[in-house]
């Protein structure tokens, strides 16, 4: 993923050796297109969620009642805050405050970790109660609830994967910042990492009410 | 006459006629141009021709009208297909890997052979117990999927006596192509005789319970129902070549089906 912006630059060097060509606008465009694919990847799942909610309104409500909305709310706040810190790190880098920018990114990664730890406890709690596909508790539930939890695991699981990918992405960016490969005048990679992280946040903004609040 | 068959065929003929005209026109123009304006016959191309708004509008608007007409014809037939007569007799159709199971209103059941009275409207409730099948009677131009977990509907008018093919049109596994059946349309009297007989010979893996002794009468007529179990009711298919062969093995994901059987 970090390739996006780098390739243009290096490629032209290899070819002509004449001048370094950098296309931040193109790199950003590519990142946005990539975000669209992510959006539609989740979009398919949201469409399924919507349809099944329509078909099994009661089952979904019953299942949502089992969810711990406090963990959900806490996780929402964590992700929102991490989004803020990413945005701040860009602003900091623009002002040549490298240390602050790195600090903000560390903070983001820690937020991501805390989010995942919360998620881990939540999942293990549910699995411990036998609520998982094929699990003893789910076996006895209605179809609506089975599907609710099926979607719950798929969607939050996929989202968790994205959090991990986002953290790795940010990790790379931090490495480049510390090596001064990403600077106040050349920060598109950081911007792209930020875009990705915000997308992860946006998806959670929808997952939260859909799975934790609507009972 | 059977309305649906007619409407479908007319819609088909309409669409195909327009299509053939367009196709012939386009192809003829193309071939003519290639010869008429070949390098030899027309050494200097006319570079001033690069487009024409009039023509563009013409060949946008005319096709729009044509396709709207095609849509409308298609819709007409469809409306008839979905316009199920209220007093049609009901047959429940269940698709199962890999045969058809029919159940009449009086709980009489039959596998593979669907016996119907001539000149009647018949409504079908389509269900499946495993995967998706599709109930298809080409002679009547009707088809609808049997989807597990829901019930679909279909109807047609049994115009003339005869034997027609039933095919499964949705791929459903190894013996999909052997999931055939027959519609056997009998004069009403013979049909009633048949339908009021209780089955004794049944397929072992038939879907529903054997018919109860207490059977309802056909809604379209009020003849008495007699129960006579002395004769078998399994009608043999009369195709020239028996298409139903023994499957070489039933390949279903056993692990899965056990898991799902809760």
């Amino acid at each position, binding site marked *: 993923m970090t390739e996006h912006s780098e390739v243009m630059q290096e490629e032209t060097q290899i070819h002509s050796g004449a001048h370094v060509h950098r*296309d931040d*606008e193109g790199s950003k*465009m590519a990142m946005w297109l990539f975000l669209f694919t992510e959006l539609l990847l989740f979009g398919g799942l949201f469409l399924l969620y919507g349809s099944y909610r329509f078909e099994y309104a009661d089952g979904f409500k019953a299942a949502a009642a089992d969810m711990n909305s406090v963990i959900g709310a806490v996780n929402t706040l964590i992700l929102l805050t991490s989004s803020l810190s990413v945005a701040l790190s860009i*602003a900091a880098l623009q002002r040549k405050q490298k240390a602050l920018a790195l600090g903000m990114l560390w903070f983001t990664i820690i937020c991501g970790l805390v989010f995942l730890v919360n998620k881990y406890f939540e999942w293990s709690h549910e699995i411990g109660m036998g609520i998982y596909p094929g699990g003893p508790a789910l076996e006895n539930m209605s179809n609506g609830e089975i599907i609710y939890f099926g979607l719950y695991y798929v969607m939050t699981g996929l989202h968790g994967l994205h959090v991990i990918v986002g953290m790795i992405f940010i990790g790379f960016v931090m490495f480049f910042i510390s090596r001064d490969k990403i600077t106040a005048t050349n920060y598109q990679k950081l*911007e792209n990492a930020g875009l990705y992280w915000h997308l992860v946040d*946006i998806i959670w903004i929808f997952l939260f009410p859909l799975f934790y609040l609507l009972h | 006459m059977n309305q649906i068959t007619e409407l479908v065929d007319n819609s088909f003929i309409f669409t195909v006629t327009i299509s053939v005209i367009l196709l012939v026109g386009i192809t003829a123009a193309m071939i003519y141009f290639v010869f008429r304006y070949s390098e030899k016959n027309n050494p200097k191309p006319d570079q001033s021709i690069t487009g024409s708004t009039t023509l563009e509008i013409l060949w946008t608007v005319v096709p729009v009208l044509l396709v709207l007409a095609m849509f409308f014809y298609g819709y007409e037939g469809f409306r008839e297909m979905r316009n199920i007569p209220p007093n049609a007799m009901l047959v429940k159709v269940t698709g199962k890997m890999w045969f058809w199971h029919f159940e009449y209103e009086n709980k009489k059941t039959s596998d593979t052979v669907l016996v119907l009275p001539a000149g009647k409207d018949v409504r079908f409730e389509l269900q499946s117990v495993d995967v998706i099948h599709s109930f298809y009677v080409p002679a009547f131009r009707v088809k609808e999927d049997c989807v597990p977990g829901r019930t679909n509907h279909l109807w047609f008018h049994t115009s003339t006596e005869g034997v027609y093919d039933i095919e499964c049109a949705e791929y459903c596994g190894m013996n999909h192509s052997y999931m055939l059946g027959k519609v056997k349309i009998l004069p009403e009297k013979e049909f009633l005789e048949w339908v009021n007989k209780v089955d004794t010979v049944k397929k072992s893996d038939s879907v529903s319970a054997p018919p109860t002794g207490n059977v309802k009468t056909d809604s379209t007529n009020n003849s008495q129902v007699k129960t006579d179990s002395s004769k078998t009711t399994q009608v043999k298919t009369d195709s020239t070549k028996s298409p139903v062969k023994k499957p070489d093995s039933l390949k279903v994901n056993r692990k899965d089906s056990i898991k799902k059987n809760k």
Partner: protein
Amino acid sequence: MSEQSQTAELTANQTYNAEHTNTNNGEHSVSYGTYFMVWLGLVALTSVTVTVAGIHLGSLTLITALLIAAVKTTLVGYHFMHLKFDNIIIKIFVMVCLGIFLCLWILTFADLSFR
């Protein structure tokens, strides 16, 4: 043909000397304060959804929750993701993507809600 050449004949010097940027060298930097305000707004909206979910509004619950989520998304997209500063083409892209996604919903529900 006239349309094609309607773009005036290219005068080469103009092309090459016209200054255009491929890089976003620290143009628009946003103050830290703005970001904090946006964050506060997001937190506030989150608490609103949580409270509203507590009250039983019936069918309105879903709609309010989604509306609030949409507002939050707009905030994140516009400020954090810098759509505010982005080139018009990226905004159009986003609109196209969302528009098509909306179509998928409408047509799918054309099936579900009439079944």
